[in-house]
């Protein structure tokens, strides 16, 4: 019954969207000024972020233009506790199509994915500091990366192709943390964002967006919102196998860990990935079988005599994955790039999962 309602909802929304003018809006959608977004694929990437006009008003507040839609995957990639705001924009009249629950949407040429990395409670002042905004721009030749580094005044962000580091100190849940935040080079972006050597997005999959997001106009399923915007072809499957928020303690430890592993590990450790020669298969669609997480699986590499399995049931201190998630040592840590400090909450979650396993099944 729920599914039928869901489908009906999508159909109704699709009908609403076939009405072409905002003037005839029934009030469900707040009228906004027309978007001024401009993405000339022949010119992009532009030298500065403001050139795209993705944001209204003062850019650092990241208020999106009317056709720049926020996104948020159920579980994000951990990058040294950086907070992120994500958006998607498509040229008028273009829309993405569904491929599979666990595959990135087939997005039209002209699509831009926008991701801003920032910290709150930044010391000494305690304010917010935006470090970079990364774009993935879909050109006819494929996706390109464009990274924009924000100035100290937080008034503009400038295109950068070279890696750089930004020292930052902030309060994370009341605890002071300091890192050298790394803005990656294009080459580094490609380590994770690739398929058969070509750049691709990672997170924009139905499984990660089939959840509610709090839009200014109210909370709504993200996929429905994209359909409503005209950014996604209607007619999605009724039952999308979906990841969850790894912080959602109302869900099973298994679902939480599997969601976390998908977001943080599966771009390499999945069939066809950068590191698929190692025995783990960590995509959400593959981890139904705990053997793919490494339960009772021999590690390829010796990292210490006590580490006899990738996951040793009920024994985190004999589990290679626990060691790798819990260290900052560069040749041992996982993920290899994208973090320099340990994600404590993830380590706790993994330990909880390991303790939940009493045997190899």
């Amino acid at each position, binding site marked *: 019954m729920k599914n039928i309602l869901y489908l009906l909802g999508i159909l109704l929304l699709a009908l609403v969207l076939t009405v072409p003018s905002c003037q005839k809006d029934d009030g469900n959608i707040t009228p906004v000024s027309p978007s001024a977004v401009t993405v000339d694929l022949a010119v992009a990437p532009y030298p500065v972020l403001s050139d795209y006009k993705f944001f209204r008003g003062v850019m650092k507040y990241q208020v999106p233009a009317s056709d720049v839609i926020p996104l948020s995957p159920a579980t994000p990639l951990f990058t040294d506790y950086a907070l992120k705001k994500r958006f998607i924009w498509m040229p008028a009249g273009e829309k993405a199509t569904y491929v599979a629950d666990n595959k990135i949407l087939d997005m039209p040429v002209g699509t831009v994915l926008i991701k801003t990395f920032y910290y709150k409670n930044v010391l000494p002042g305690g304010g917010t500091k935006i470090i970079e905004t990364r774009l993935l721009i879909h050109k006819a030749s494929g996706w390109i990366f464009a990274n924009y580094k924000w100035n100290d005044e937080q008034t503009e962000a400038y295109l950068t192709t*070279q*890696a750089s580091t930004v020292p930052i100190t902030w309060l994370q849940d009341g605890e002071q943390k300091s890192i050298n935040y*790394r803005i990656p*080079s294009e*080459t*580094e972006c*490609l*380590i994770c964002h*690739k*398929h*058969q*050597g070509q750049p691709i997005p990672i997170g924009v999959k139905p499984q990660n967006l089939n959840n509610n997001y709090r839009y200014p106009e109210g909370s709504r399923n993200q996929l429905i919102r994209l359909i409503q915007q005209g950014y996604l072809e209607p007619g999605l499957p009724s039952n999308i196998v979906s990841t969850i928020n790894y912080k959602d303690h109302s869900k099973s430890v298994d679902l939480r860990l599997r969601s976390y592993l998908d977001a943080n590990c599966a771009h*390499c450790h999945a069939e*066809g*990935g*950068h*590191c*698929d*020669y*190692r*025995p783990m298969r960590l995509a959400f669609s593959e981890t139904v079988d705990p053997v793919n997480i490494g339960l009772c699986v*021999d590690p*390829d*590499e*010796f990292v210490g*005599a006590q580490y*006899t399995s990738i996951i040793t049931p009920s024994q985190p201190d004999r589990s290679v994955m626990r060691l790798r998630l819990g*260290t*900052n*040592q*560069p*040749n*041992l840590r996982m993920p*290899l*790039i994208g973090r320099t400090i340990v994600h404590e909450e993830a380590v706790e979650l993994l330990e909880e999962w390991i303790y939940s396993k009493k045997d190899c099944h």
Partner: protein
Amino acid sequence: MKKPYFLLLAIGFPLLSTAQVTFTATTYNQIPSGWPSYNLATVDMNGDYLDDIVVVSATEITILYQQAAGGFTSTTITTSMADYTPDWSMAVGDIDKNGFNDLLYGSGGGVTFMKANATGTAYTEVSFNEYVFSQRTNFVDINNDGHLDAYVCHDVAPNVYYLNDGNGNLTFHQGGIGDHPEGGNYGSIWVDYDNDGDQDCFIAKCRGGGSTASIDELHQNDGNGNFTNVAVAANMANADQSWSGAWNDYDNDGDMDAMVGASSAPNGETGVHSLMRNNGDGTFTNITAGSGWENNNTLSIEHVSYDFDNNGFADMFGGSDYLAGGGGKFMYNNGDMTFTPFVDAGVNISDASIGDLNNDGFLDLRHGQTVYYNNGNNNNWVKIQLKGIASNFNGIGARVEIYGDWGKQIRDVRSGDGFAHMNTLNVHFGLGTATEIDSVRVLWPSGHVDVVDSPAINDAVTIVEGTDPLSLVEIGNQKLDVFPNPATAELSISNIGLLNVTEVEVYNMHGEKMQAQSGNFGTINVSSLAEGAYILLIRTTEGNTYAESFVKKN
């Protein structure tokens, strides 16, 4: 006077049965341990040829200098905060020829050099801004100008190198020696696989997703700093997931063979390592089946080759059989291209830096604070210590050969072997039960050849470039020399009139006679020979034969 010898007919005696050695662990608390210390190097740092223990961090270099009387004296030198630390590998060499070795740190973000001052008491950091996801690092004289350059495998982009201007100043370069756009470069081993006197570069490669970046590469050096990937033609284009290849002349036939070690068995297959015999003609044959390696299912990112039991045949170490309750995995060379596995439960490690830390001629392993001292056996040995003059200071890239009843053994001097570590720069040979070495020959990167006859055994022999120049034969203090070597058009033989020569012949390394002449013996026209190594043979009316190897270059 040197006795006549005829290399072509030298028959390799099986020296003796395999005599596996054991190791005894000793822990030194003064060795810094645990990240962020990097415990990667066991190599001489101060020019006394005694291997030292080298541990670095972002701000310190700790050296435990091996003492002639045994034991160590520890020094810690504070450095500037290195931009990049050796997260993935470290190499050591003297880039400014001041007698104190310099350091190369390969990190996931870039490359830092630490250059020793004139007394080895302080180091100056030189870091490069260019992004490099470093894997194996090497010091090697890439353009053969006598100055050490540096080479760094790039995990995710074309490989990079740093050329030395002769004053120890380095310039960044990318491209030309392994240019796959996705990288996949893990284990670069510089080796003269085609015996033409220059350094070629083998790259053990690894990458998932079915990427062609996983296919190993073999870059042949044309002698002018131009490199061509000949892996397919050479039968070295292996797509197994490898982080290191162990190169040595496993059958003592005068050319470098390879064991390309697998780091994973992605489909659960067994026998994933590849033992590749050098055919001497630029190609390799996979002889894994029946060698013992087909049954070695111990995976490792590190594989290195040394003669641990000093029986005259190079062995291998890499990986651990800890899952089966064992320890470090050795493969002992039986001398006939078969290997016997030996798991040493007392060596509870899978990788180590390798050197002789008690100067007993038997190679030891070091991992962290622990030295695994080789307990040795009754076999004899010799240790060759090089000092370059025209070539780089450490003699990196030199080919060292020893001749005796066994025929010939060879080694290449390498900075950067296996995957991550830096091992001794001294050249170790086991002699088995042999008690005499006819001669030691060093073919320097410069082209100089030094020969030391009848060196002492069970001792170290120091050879300074150019002080024992090649002489074919010496009669009444007059030497017969073959020069230049390498040669392009003509080879000259000095003082040839001292011999009653009947014929001068040239053989290739397969023993095929390429040319002969029965007159005008002082000048040999070699212009029609293809590039490579050859042997010059002089026959006399008395029935003696004198042989000398030379290299032809175009």
